């Protein structure tokens, strides 16, 4: 079974600064997908960024980028120019290829607080 580990329960960053959230995972698969989801206080989960394991290039979405290290099974999220609206729980997630009907395995989350 796949496991996803987020070792930072809470983090804090000042507005406009950069923060990196860590995630490691364990799998015997060669092809898979990795995700970062954001859960703001409204509770509605939102996809932040998505990485396909067969792509070596790190995914980027505006201020959000990942550092995907396949051999190390590491998938960290970097948030640049942090904004107050980035305050949320961030969940790292793993998914086997699409034959498994979009079943995601989530980590335990990192609570990010962006301060003035």
């Amino acid at each position: 079974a796949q496991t996803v580990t987020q070792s930072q329960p809470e983090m804090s960053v000042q507005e406009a600064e950069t923060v990196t959230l860590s995630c490691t995972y364990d799998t015997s698969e060669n092809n898979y997908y990795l995700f970062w989801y954001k859960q703001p206080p409204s509770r509605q989960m939102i996809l932040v960024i998505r990485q396909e394991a067969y792509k070596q290039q790190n995914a980027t979405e505006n201020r959000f980028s990942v550092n995907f290290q396949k051999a190390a099974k590491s998938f960290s999220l970097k948030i640049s120019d942090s904004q107050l609206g980035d305050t949320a729980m961030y969940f790292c997630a793993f998914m086997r290829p699409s034959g498994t009907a979009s079943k995601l395995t989530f980590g335990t989350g990192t609570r990010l607080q962006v301060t003035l």
Partner: protein
Amino acid sequence: SAVISQKPSRDICQRGTSLTIQCQVDSQVTMMFWYRQQPGQSLTLIATANQGSEATYESGFVIDKFPISRPNLTFSTLTVSNMSPEDSSIYLCSVHPRGAPAGKLFFGSGTQLSVL
């Protein structure tokens, strides 16, 4: 994309009673997923609800405790039966719309359930 309306937003229930949570999507989707998020913990998949067939339950979850209905392609319900305080959680409905990238799920705002 998909817009998901989930009701109720929150409820406080007595032990031994049952609660039915509704999930309405603004477009037709093949798969709907029900997740549980226990306090301070990650999201755990309860079951996958397919239209026209019985739901597929994950290990540790059974139909008698969490019956699911999926009468059409835009609606599903999850019932939490014979509740105990251990069922106090946030319950989240999610969907994977047709054409969305693999693993890109859209979530409702969740139902926060407290069982006394």
